[in-house]
């Protein structure tokens, strides 16, 4: 049954934590757990969600949850899945929630190993585009141009000079059982992908954009809006990989203004119109490829 705002589980599984106001990551975790239910075991590496949720004695998950090492989200999921299966328990979901650094940088080896083994787990990357928990440092998923505390925007270097790693296509290149992209701006789409993932055997990967008002330099009330806009302007896309094929799940007829999306955010304040032109060109190139090669 498709998940909707109306039928979404009323129980809370991630509640009473101390995430910042407007946190996109906590929105992703809270709602994904509503879809997966009480028999989900959440594995969270060092990062925002473990930092805000697991401070003894204030523990905020009402289902089973555990912090993994920073690099070990996927490998701990593997062990948990094997352990419960071994104990004859079948009705459970081992789900990881790792940030962009925990996924695309330090955790990519373990993630690759889990996909290679086709372990029966769901791995959700909540992507806020930098190491936000430690104070906004560049990760492999920080977009081109963004200012972080390790990619300062000065006279010589204007923020991060490299584009995001393409995690969705990296995991898909493993011929993973299921992969999807999502955003907390289109919550129903995200939650339906989570539900779909929970019904597929093997390794599932969902990459969800989860804005961080603190790191992005936006008002705390604008999280959902900006998470919609990143898709509407074409800088993020909603897609799936399944049975060896890529599919676009949302194909905008026309894009909204990239410039408007960029200009709203403190992290891009220093970008020139030429910089934005570079961003638009790379978007157009990507979409040309998507529309040609994906269904």
């Amino acid at each position, binding site marked *: 049954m498709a998940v909707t705002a109306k039928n979404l589980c009323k129980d809370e599984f991630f509640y009473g934590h101390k995430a910042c106001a407007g946190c996109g990551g906590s929105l992703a975790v809270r709602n994904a757990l509503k879809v997966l239910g*009480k*028999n989900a*075991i959440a*594995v969270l590496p060092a990062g925002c969600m*473990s*930092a805000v*949720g*697991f*401070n*003894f*004695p204030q*523990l*905020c*998950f*009402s*289902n*089973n*949850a*555990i*912090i*993994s*090492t920073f*690099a*070990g989200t*996927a*490998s*701990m*999921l*593997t*062990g*948990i*899945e*094997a*352990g*419960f*299966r*071994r*104990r004859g*328990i079948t009705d*459970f979901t081992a789900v990881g929630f790792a940030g962009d650094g925990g996924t695309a940088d330090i955790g990519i*080896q*373990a993630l*690759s*190993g889990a996909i*290679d*083994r086709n372990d029966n787990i769901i791995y959700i990357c909540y992507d806020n585009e930098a190491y936000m928990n430690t104070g906004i440092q560049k990760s492999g998923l920080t977009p081109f141009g963004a200012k972080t505390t390790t990619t300062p925007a000065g006279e010589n270097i204007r923020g991060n000079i490299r584009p995001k790693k393409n995690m969705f296509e990296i995991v898909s290149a493993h011929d993973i059982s299921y992969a999807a992209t999502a955003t907390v701006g289109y919550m129903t789409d995200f939650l339906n992908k989570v539900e779909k993932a929970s019904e597929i055997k093997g390794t599932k990967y969902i990459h969800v954009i989860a804005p961080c008002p603190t790191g992005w330099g936006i008002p705390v009330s604008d999280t959902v809006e900006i998470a919609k806009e990143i898709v509407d302007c074409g800088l993020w896309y909603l897609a799936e990989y399944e049975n060896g094929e890529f599919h676009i799940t949302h194909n905008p007829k026309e894009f909204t203004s990239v410039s408007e999306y960029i200009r709203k955010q403190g992290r891009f304040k220093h970008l020139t119109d030429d910089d934005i032109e570079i961003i638009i060109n790379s978007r157009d190139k990507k979409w040309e490829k998507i529309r040609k090669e994906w269904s």
Partner: protein
Amino acid sequence: MARKFLSGDESFAEGIRLARPEVISAYPITPQTIVVERLSEMVEDKSLDSEFIHVESEHSALSCAIGASATGVRSFTATSSQGLLYMAECLYYASGGRFPIVMMNANRSTALPWNIYGDQRDSLSQLDSGWIQVYAENAQESLDLALMSYYIAENEKVSTPFMVNLDGFILTHTYEEVDIPTQEQADIFLPEYKTDNRLDFDNPKNMAFSAGPEHNYIFKYKEHIGMKNAVSVIEKAEEKFAEIFGRKYTGLIDTYKTEDADYIIITLGSIAGLCRETADKLRKNGIKAGVLRIRYMRPFPTEEIAGAVKNAKAVAILEKDISFGNEGAVFTNVNSALHTERVNIPSYNFIGGLGGRNISASDIEHIYFEIAKGTKKVNFIGIEVANNGSYSKKSLQGRIFLRS
């Protein structure tokens, strides 16, 4: 009971088969690899019913074992050297989370320079990681420790991970005749693993959490107590083991003719056998020599060592380790024990076997002579530095002590 001609690695794998771990995470590294190869064969031929997981690194090997242990199942992994160092973060994670995982470590030199042969610098660098550490002397003890390790680690008052160390190649690749207990005997000895320290659907838990300054300290204290509790559980395990299998082990240390000895070599691992032979030879010549083999480096046998050597004239600590700029870690630990127990006898450190270099019977004989006449605090076996700072011809050919 069957008798088989097995290497240390194979013997340990037999012990693990009898312990029936439910999840095994495996990654190859010389000289440990044979253990996981044998276990995979046992899973294949169904003589071992276990989830065998091919992880992609040692970090993942232990992280996976921690995940499995958090579901309440018995888990196993094995490593060596660089692998142990690569998983170091997870060592502390496993002990802090009180996950009673058993791991075999094949003691091997650490790079650089690269070297696959045996010394004990890998595990001795991790004495503070919160793992019980035992050092086997032969293939039979390796097998027996595989069984006893789970008994001790899983005791609810201990709940601490357990590292069984085998000297690389000297033990892992050397064949001996070994008694293999029956599964029935093993099952009588080793109860099924039951714990509350696990994720539970009836009573959901948040595990491996953060704890601020106020609580963190309490958790660390409890971890220390858990390790200390292992001392009496080791004793209990060995009593039960002797009852069922007829082999008696001697707790944290293993002494040889120390009661009346004037000169005692304190060491660990496989070199102890040669030390005992040498002690016997010297005793024929009227020198009262003894040997103390440390079995457990953690929990550390402070009272046991001090008690065993207190009447000696001098002790040598022979180890395959050096903490650069200081001395060997075993020497530091033994000296601390002697001082703590107010045993005032001279102690000398002999560093040897690094990168697998041989320690000969004559080296050991020299050690007894050197401590009888008194020597420098730290001595590197087989190296001599000439006055001009270059290696002397003699030292490259022969075996002379460097007196640092």
